[in-house]
Structures are given as C-alpha cells and as structure tokens.
C-alpha cells in the first residue's frame, strides 16, 4: 500500500469503505511519518489522497485536522451511548455488565484481604505443652494482711483447710492469666502457714532448650514481678489480701 485514504466524515462518506472513527486519523503506511496534508485544504477534500508519503520513519501516528466537523463529538457520544445500551444477555446491558465485573473484582480483592487478615495464626499462640519437661522452681514467702491467727508458733496446716487451698488457687489463677508464663506454669503449692506468714513454691516446666528462657521469660525478675504487680493491683479489703511489701522469692530446688 503506497497511499493512504484520508477523508472527512461530513464531506464524502460513501467512497472509501472506511469505518467512521478511522476517518479522522491518518495511519502512516509501512514506514511513514506525517504527511503534509495540513498544508492544503484542497487535497484534504479529496476522498483519496495521493500526496507522497515519506517512508523513512517507522510508523508515526498522526491525526488529521478537518476544517469543520461540528457534529463529530455528539456523534461519538451518541454511538458510545448506543453501544453501552446494547443488551448482552437477558436484560443485562453492556454498561451493567461492566459495572458488575468491576464490583466483582473489587469484592474478590476485599474478600481475599479480609480472609488473609483473619486467618493468620500467630506462631507464639501455638505450642506443645507436652514438650515442656524440665522443671524449674521458685520459692518464697509472703504475709497475709487480713487474716487473724491464733498466737501459736507451731505449724498449723489444718488450722483452716480452705485457706491453703484458696491461696494455692489464687497463685495458680495469677500465673494462669499471665500471657508470658501461663504455658510454662505447672503448679503452686503452699508449704507452711505460720501465723500470717505463708511459704509457697511455684513449679514451671520448660522445653529442653531453655537457656534464653531462664534468662528472660522465666527469670526470677519476671516471675517475681508478675506476682508483685497482681498483688499491688488487688483490693485491700480482700480476705486473701497479701501484703505486697512482704513478698520475696528466689530460684529454688524441689525439696
């Protein structure tokens, strides 16, 4: 193809078998650049252009200015409107189909993000308690503030059966509610109850690999302060009120 057909829609429209939209564009042949069609209105008036096409450059795309095209814009819009109103299937029109596709894509993305955000497991929430086998003990004492005891220096484990059990439960509840220590906590025991002074023992179980654990999470500092901060938060009217300043603790061995 050496020459290119160019024409304006409003002038000659039946001679070129060219689609309406293409009429306003000049497509360079093979290796053509813009032709010099702007130079002459006369040549533009012809249905077939015979002006020479320069063939040095590669495929430039040039638009043609037609001198008067007052109806072009409304026509394009009209055509677009018409096409969008064409029925695809049943009562669904093209514009509806585009909208549905768009909504569908957005919903899929949102659903995907939503599912991802909710179903992400935290690795620290999963642990195998049966792999915690190495015991670790802490021992210490504290004083009960709101209990009245018989002035007797002998150990009275049966003075009030409920008291050691309640204290044991209290310690267990405290450590079972701890985010960091709960998984390692095993047992709290009340050894002796003398006057208001209580000797206690805590047992934790650690995995075989526990060097860092005993230095940080299961250190005396953390185990002691978890208990102490609960004691400081407790209600002073409570019958099991433990005097926070009386609390002491050390890392101990089972006896």
């Amino acid at each position, binding site marked *: 193809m050496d020459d290119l057909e160019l024409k304006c829609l409003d002038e000659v429209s039946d001679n070129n078998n060219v689609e309406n939209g293409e009429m306003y564009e000049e497509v360079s042949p093979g290796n053509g650049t813009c032709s010099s069609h702007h130079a002459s209105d006369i040549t533009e008036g012809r249905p077939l252009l015979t002006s020479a096409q320069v063939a040095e450059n590669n495929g430039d795309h040039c638009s043609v200015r037609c001198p008067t095209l007052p109806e072009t814009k409304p026509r394009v819009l009209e055509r677009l409107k018409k096409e969008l109103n064409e029925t695809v299937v049943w009562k669904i029109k093209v514009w509806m189909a585009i909208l549905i596709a768009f909504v569908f894509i957005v919903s899929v993305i949102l659903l995907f993000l939503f599912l*991802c955000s*909710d179903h992400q497991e935290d690795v*620290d929430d999963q642990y195998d308690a049966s792999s915690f086998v190495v015991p670790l003990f802490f021992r210490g004492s504290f004083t009960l503030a709101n209990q009245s005891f018989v002035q007797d220096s002998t150990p009275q484990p049966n003075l009030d059966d409920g008291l050691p059990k309640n204290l044991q439960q209290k310690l267990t509840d405290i450590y079972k509610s701890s985010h*960091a220590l709960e998984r390692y906590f095993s047992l709290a025991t009340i050894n002796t109850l003398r006057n208001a002074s209580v000797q206690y023992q805590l047992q934790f179980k650690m995995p075989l690999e526990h060097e*860092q654990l005993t230095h*940080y999470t299961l*250190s005396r*500092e953390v185990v002691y302060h*978890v208990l102490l901060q609960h004691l400081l938060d407790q209600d002073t009217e409570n019958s099991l009120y433990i005097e926070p300043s009386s609390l002491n603790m050390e890392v101990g061995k089972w006896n």
Partner: protein
Amino acid sequence: MLCRSSRCCWLLATVLASFVVCKAQPCENITDLDLKHSIIGSTLQVRLLLYTRVNATCGHLLDSENPFSEPLLNVTRPTIFIIHGYRPTGSPPIWMNWVVEAILARKDVNAIVVDWNRGATNINYLKVVENTRRVAVNLTHFIQKLQDEGVSLSSIHMIGVSLGAHIAGFTGANFNSNIGRITALDPAGPSFTGKLPEDRLDKTDAQFVDVLHTDMDSLGFRKPLGHIDFYANGGADQPGCPKTIFSGSKYFKCDHQRSVFLFLYSLNNTCPITAYPCSSYSDFLDGKCLNCTQFGSAGCPVFGYDVIRWKDSLVKMDQAMTYFTTNKETPFCKTGYKVDILTWNSEARWGYISITLRKGDQETTAEIDHKSYKFEQYTENSLLAQFDRDVQPAEKITLKYRTGNVFGPRYKLRVLRIRLTPLPLEHKLRPLCRYDLLLLENKEVTFRPIPCEWSNF
C-alpha cells in the same frame, strides 16, 4: 506590710523609679517605619537605647560619642546588647520589649537595644546585608568607648537575631574573641550560607558562642556556627507554624521568629529545656543520645540563657550539635521519658507505640511514630517518648501498638517488660515498670505502673 516579697518591692521600685526618670527624660522607642520606607529604602542610622532596672520600660537614647553622659549606664554592671534583624515592613520587632524586661527581671544589667531599623528596612535584602558591616563598625566604636571607661569585654553579651547574629559576629571579630558571649537566634542563612568564617558569625567571634536554629531550611543557617548549636525540633519546622502559604506572612516568619520566643521563654527559667548532643535529629528521636556523660555531674546542657553554665566544657569540646523538641506554644518545654521495651515474640514485629499517662483527670499522650520500630525477641528497644506536659507520678499508663497496615493480619506485641525512665537521666528519677503485657494491634492496654527494681537483663 506594703510589700510581701522582695520581688514585689523590686517591681514597686521599678515603677516608681521609671516614673521619676520618665518625668526627667522622654522615653525612646525603636524607630517605627512603614512599607513606604521599605520600598524606597532607608539609609542606615544606628541608635542605641539603654534600659536598666530603673528604666525597664523607658529607653534612654545613648550618645555613641559620649555614652557616659547617660547617668544610668553603669560600668560595674554587665552589658547585654540586643540586635534585631531584617525588617521588611519597617515595623519595630514586637518581642523587643519583652526580651528587655525578661533580661532585666533575671539580672541587673545594662540592656542596650541596637535600633538599626533605618537600614534594616529595605525591600532589597542585599542592601540590608551590606548594612550589617556598617552596624558592626558602629558597635565596635561604641564598645571601644565602653572599654576606655573600664568596661570588661568579657562582661559583654550580645544577643543577635537573624542578621543581628552576624552583626554580633562581625563586632566580636573586631575584639579578637574577647567579647564574653554571643547568642545567635536563628542566624540568617541567605547571603551567608557557604561564606568564609570572616564573612559570617563563627565561634571565634567571642569567648562563648551559643546558636539556636529554628528555620534552617528557609531564612536561617543550616550548619553549626557556635560552640553549641541548638536545633529546636530538628532546626527546620516548628510545631504550630503554618505549613502552607495560605496563612499569609506568618508562613514566612513563624519558624524564624520562634527562636526569639524560645530564648525569651528560657529567661524566666520555669521549665528548663534539656538539649541532647547528638549526630542527627533522627538519632535523637530514636532515643540514641539521652546520655550526657561527657558533661560529668552537670548533665545535659539546658537550652537558652542558662547554657553559660556549660561554657567551660563546651569550649573544650569545640563544637556540639544538640537537639530538643518543644510544644507549639508556651510552656514550650516537653517532658521526656526513655522507654525501654523488651519483647518475646519469636518473630520480629514492626510498629509504632503510643503512650498515655494519667493522674486523676490529667492526661497526656506521646506518639512514638517518628519511624516504624523493629521489635525482636529478647532485644531491648530504647525509644524516646515526649509528652506535652508533666503528669507525675503517673497513676495509670495506657499503651497502644499499631503497625499502620490497613489490611493484613492483626499482630500482637508480647511485651515482657516496659520501663519508663524520666529524663534527663542524670536526675536519677525512679523509673516505672510493668511486666507481661499483650498488646493487640490498635487496642489500648491500661495498667498501673510499679516502681522498677534491679534488673539483670
């Protein structure tokens, strides 16, 4: 009893004395010009106005050839010069009287206001820059007169604002580092940036040069110029100052003028602002520069008028860049805490922390969002939390962890211990602790802090 305190007596005496003095001599103010003078340009005229405790609100014009004809000028008192900068509209600086009064309330000095408004008022900034040398010549001549009457150069303190800072520098250079102190409040950058030390203020211009930077990205000077350089809020943008041009003239001058207000605030000494020597503002915000062991028992330097207490160690150190943050209005001082967070998540977590302190119905919040911090297992992160007011002792603390992600999983930050140590560290105030916290992303966790005890990690 008429007077209940010595301060009251002093005020009364000042008022009475001012009345007596004012009756005798008319009060002089800084030359008041307008935009018209700025457009046609004004020729330089330097006027020196003396204020003392006797005439704290009524300036007396000094005769530069015969300054001691003014009986209130006393050679036994230290002398402070206050030098303003470029005046594009010709109006006298609004802060001048406040600064003079605050200085006189603090110390019994000869406060001399250098009025070079005729010369500083010109739409052509370059012309005003040229005039700075001439003002310095004028001041040098005047100081020589003082020196002849036995005034010690080391008792002279020059406070220069913007271009005034360079005037102080040029004047000081004429006395071979013998002037006692130069305080530069946001020294001017345009026409001075990149110049040789002799063509601008530098630390050899006085025995001690302290510099405040508040607008280094526009009207101020970026590089350090003194023995100590304070970069308030990083030295560029000040809190509460407009960020867009739609706010009018405030947009241009707010950051620059803040330097004067910060210095003015430092004079009344109610809430000292501690400055932390650091290599960058970013490192300071990261909490990497909270120790001031290099200053020994004196601790970190305090910004403003009182930094003179650190003179000896700062002169020995040669140069120190220091940083602090301020509130957007008075009181400018912030209350800082060093926050150490030890976490036990086995996977590293990233995010920001916000901390709220409560005491009764008082509440203050610090957002530590300068950057997203990485929390690694059993690695302590030290952050800097800065509150706009002091809520001590905090009865309740609320923590919030956020990642900034809109989508994605809601992460948990598992805190083994959080410790809040009040700043400055050399005050050795007792830190507050809490152990074993689970911070769910975007959920607040409130607790009662406990006093920290010994720690082996």
